[in-house]
């Protein structure tokens, strides 16, 4: 048990009245701080704050764009809890995140550690790994459409055909479609994660490795006892951004599968799109968006707890 550093009987200094300095260098700094932060704050207010408020207000209405919104209380929220397709979409997002993010983070870390070494041609390899991230998702999806093509002309089925398997219906089978989508998200997601890990690796103090060398630590021990802990802030950042990006996946699904077959690959953002732009139910879509926002806030909070991020992260 840790002893308290103060005792109740210890003399306590008399409280002093708060003293506000209205002039001097600190006040000038504060003013400049406010001035410099103002554009970002204004941007956040106009383009994030107000839309959230508007979305919340619309979520309490029956609104089809054509006629005026009619207040319907929490009917949209009640409906969401009865909407099995929405929860199927949430589940799909959770599966994509639960499977795809750990794998892509692990692979990104491995690539980062390897490509952080002075290897010949590492610049080329770095670009190769990063390339899927900077390629437009529409182009990525089109390429994977060809790779997954159900006919023997598809790349994947051609390769599988050589070893006597298939052809497999990657995007039309309810059991294969989601894994096929997850594979694309992993492939596309490694690049950015690797870049962040590479940057974080530059900041790891080399003396720690030197000290561990003296202690006789092997590569695996150094990796798990020095590299991984020292990359914790980066891991937290990657995890949170990956979770948010995962729950905002839209274009990949839109082009690859349109949420099918039988909603096997539907995700929350695509469900919101369907509700708003295919069914013209903007009130319900707004409520779904608010639920998504709340889910992301909760996920961010739990990620912080799981990874053990600090205030400085």
């Amino acid at each position, binding site marked *: 048990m840790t002893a308290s550093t103060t005792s109740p009987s210890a003399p306590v200094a008399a409280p002093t009245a708060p003293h506000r300095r209205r002039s001097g260098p600190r006040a000038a700094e504060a003013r400049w701080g406010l001035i410099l932060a103002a554009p970002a704050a204004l941007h956040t207010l106009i383009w994030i704050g107000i839309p959230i408020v508007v979305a919340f207000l619309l979520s309490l209405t029956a609104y089809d764009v*054509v006629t005026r*919104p009619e207040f319907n209380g929490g009917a949209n929220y009640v409906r969401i809890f009865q909407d099995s397709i929405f929860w199927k979409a949430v589940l799909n997002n959770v599966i994509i995140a639960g499977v795809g993010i750990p794998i892509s983070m692990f692979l990104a870390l491995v690539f980062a550690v390897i490509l952080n070494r002075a290897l010949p041609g590492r610049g080329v390899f770095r670009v190769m790994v990063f390339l899927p991230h900077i390629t437009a998702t529409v182009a990525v999806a089109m390429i994977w459409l060809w790779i997954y093509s159900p006919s023997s002309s598809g790349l994947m089925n051609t390769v599988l055909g050589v070893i006597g398997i298939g052809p497999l219906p990657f995007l039309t089978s309810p059991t294969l479609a989601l894994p096929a989508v997850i594979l694309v998200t992993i492939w596309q997601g490694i690049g950015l994660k690797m870049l962040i890990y590479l940057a974080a690796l530059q900041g790891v103090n080399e003396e720690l490795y030197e000290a561990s060398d003296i202690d006789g630590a092997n590569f695996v021990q150094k990796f798990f006892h020095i590299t991984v802990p020292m990359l914790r802030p980066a891991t937290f950042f990657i995890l949170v951004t990956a979770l948010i990006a995962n729950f905002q996946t839209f274009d990949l699904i839109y082009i690859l599968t349109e949420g099918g077959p*039988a909603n096997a690959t539907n995700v929350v953002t695509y469900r919101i799109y369907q509700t708003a732009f295919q069914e013209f139910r903007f009130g319900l879509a707004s409520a779904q968006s608010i639920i998504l926002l709340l889910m992301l806030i909760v996920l961010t909070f739990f990620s912080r707890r799981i990874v053990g991020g600090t205030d400085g992260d």
Partner: protein
Amino acid sequence: MLSRRSLLTAAGASGIGLTAAACGSSDGGGTADGPVDMGAEVSALSGEISVLTPDFTGDARAGLDDMIDQFMENNPDVSVTVDQVAWDKLNEKLSTSIAGGVVADVIMAGVGWTPPFAEKGIFAQLPTDYVEGIGLDEAILTSSTFDGSYYSLPIAMDLRFVVYNKEMFEAKGITEPPATLEELAQIANDLTGDGVVGLDLLTTNIRQAWIHLLYAFGGTLFSEDGMTPTMHEEPGAKATQWILDLIDSGGVDYNMQAAEGQPTPFMRGEAAMQLLSTAAWNDWSTMMPELTEDGAVGMFLLPGGDGNDPVMFQGGTTVSVGQRSQNQDAAAALVQHFMDPAMLAQGNAALGKVPPTADIPETPEISENLLTSFALEHLDKAGAAEGGSAAWMEIRGNLQPIIEACLTGQADVETTLSEMKTLSDDAISRI
């Protein structure tokens, strides 16, 4: 300096203001309550009108521009601008333009969209005497009505029937196309084997293929007034079971779906028959020109089941006058111009689609298109179509996964039909 309280107040007020602004243009009603005037004098027409179209992309755009140029020559005080959007973005375009208070004067949309958009006050009512005076077949006009009135006109149809590989038929000694759905199933099974599937039913669109079969068994999606679903009744069950039986026997392969831009299994010789849309002609011309030669493939209408007549499925493009148009007379005049036989011929020649009537001037593009020629011969059979209810837009997207779940073995027929009914009842209850 703003206090926290005043800042929050301002944010809230701005939010409410934006909401109000977003809804400002959305107070229902348009500029005319009754049918639009299709008889305005040319001298009375002036101003600018806009056309929203998901069609006439790529090379076909020149055809549309030429049609509009001819309209402007005849109506020198009217100018026309074109807003082109992809088919899959048309919904977004319409909803965002409505929210922004700027809706096109002339709107091209899909078959099945008329009742929902007429009910929402986006399409204006067209005069019955004008529509019936054009002389289109009743089957073609079924999807242009809402509540007993016309709100759109078909200008470029995409019709569906079955094509077959003549050599494969001959090899199996099949001399006649099937006359019933039972015969079609039998032939599909007979032709299946050696790397060939008898019938490629699902490549074009699974939902639309199911609806096509529903009509072939004598069913409909909704009651005549669009307020009661009927798709879950006996013909719906028979249509679903017919597909499932063929999937079970191998005559239809659920996974045989061609990716976008890829040759279909029929084109590759991996399917003996295909339920095909006339739009396939363009792909045939570019990818498999041998299929476009006279006599290269056989064609027949999807036969009826239970003694019903054969039926074609009707997709394609309709044209409407915007209910919110500030220049409805000019918009109506442009719609009339598009429906002129010479324009129908020119437009469909550019699009590779089927005119809603065979009564048009001859063009080589249309007369040499064997799929269009076959469809034109059977326009009176084009009675199967999506839509029929003002709630269709809500139902449409959710119907497909229900059908897919059944065809992939995740739900039985009874559950599937029950889900269809629940979905439809729920959507209709909100009208």
